């Protein structure tokens, strides 16, 4: 069970806008789904997945990659070879 305030807060944390008209619908749907997830509560807290796998590392060497021009080719706005983003502060 989640409240509309919870959904509003989570949506804000996730940076996905939800307008007031959608809030009730999202709350009721997420409540149903999270209620369904509650069946997992009955399971033991396992150690998680053990696949016997190990990380495979490589040397940190420069290899072929996109050129700066290619990397910037899909950006709506660029400046001096950089992406242009909204201000953070």
């Amino acid at each position, binding site marked *: 069970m989640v409240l509309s305030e919870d959904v509003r807060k989570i949506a804000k944390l996730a940076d996905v806008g939800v307008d007031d008209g959608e809030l009730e619908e999202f709350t009721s749907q997420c409540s149903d789904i999270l209620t369904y997830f509650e069946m*997992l509560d009955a399971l033991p807290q396992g150690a998680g997945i053990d696949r016997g796998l190990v990380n495979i590392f490589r040397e940190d060497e420069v290899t072929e990659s996109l050129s700066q021009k290619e990397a910037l080719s899909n950006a709506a706005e660029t400046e001096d070879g950089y992406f242009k983003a909204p*201000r953070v502060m």
Partner: protein
Amino acid sequence: MSRSLNFSVSDTINAFITTIPEVSYEDGPLSGTTVAIKDNISTRGVETTCASKILKGYIPPYDAHVVTLLKEAGAAIVGKTNMDEFGMGTTTENSAFGPTLNPCDPARVPGGSSGGSAAAVAAGYCDMALGSDTGGSIRCPAAFCGIVGLKPTYGRVSRYGLIAYANSLEQIGPMAKDVTGVSRLFSVIAGHDKRDSTSVDRPYTHTPDPSIKGLKIGLPSEFFGEGVDPKVAESVRNAVNTLERAGAEAVPCSMPSMSHALAAYYVICTSEASSNLARFDGVRYGPGGDLRKSWHEEFSDRRQERFGKEVRRRIILGTFSLAAGYFGRYYQKAQTARQMVRDDFNRLFKDVDLVAGPTMPSIAFRLKEKSDPLQMYLSDILTVPANLAGVPAISVPCAKVDGMPVGLQLIGRHFEDEKVIDAAFAYEQEAA
């Protein structure tokens, strides 16, 4: 030698997002074979949208590994197919480009999320198609449209260039009208790629062999029980009888972990999605926005405007599942359930070679029939176990119920895609 063909179809079912009218291709094992690519697989110089407004106009500067392999094999890549936005759906209705219609009955959905790929093959627009399968997204539309679709063993096909939704679950796989076509396409795309850290060096060089004498097939009661349309269950049992006539032996079995598999799947896929989709900020690709706004305000507004509701719902659910205070309750418990599914398969595969059941619990839904998200999720119950365990699974058409195709699903041990393909081929031969 370089050749070219003109590709032109009257796409009345909205299977394609982009078509390529003039296609050049080379010599090779697939020379001149027309192949459609799901629109979440990157194609250099050809718009790739994931059926989302947030990637409108995105032209990948590189090819996915599978696309490179297809070009080298001489395939003629004819277009990019419609899908549920970012792969999130079971109907192909969650597309910013409108739904794809089922070629067998245009009042019904083709299944999803690789619905455009399945519909394009079923309608005869192209010879073969690539899909991706996170929780059934190749097998479901293959079943609903009456074609063959394989979700390979996790790691067998490189995911490099597949726009990620839930990395630990998804695989790219082949779709075609028959098992031979699926096998031919799989032989081109399987193999090691160092750019995918989960890629395994297990190429596929097999030719389908219908001799299955002595093959032991387990039929879990959970695949034929509650929630499965009795007419669908019956037709799949008949298909198993056909396999028995071809020399296989069927035995009843049980998969108790099925009770928690769907909840585990949706916790894991939404958690991974909430992280993966954070990259869509509109700065590096996609239509631009208002740079005068603050970062969070602009990011949030853009994503509200350009992500559909199902995508935002899954990001919210995933963010919730991973939030401090809930992580142990949802995500960690889901990993326990995932291990239970793996353990069940490992136990069954000590005794049987394959597990069989229906691919989907029903025939294709009518358009807009699954308007409630949870009801839609529940229809994935028979396909998600193979993704949770990473094992190979195929859907092969086996009957019609109410005039609509039904898929027989065959699931095998890790890296025994060959055996899954052989059994599907044996079924096809025996039923013909």
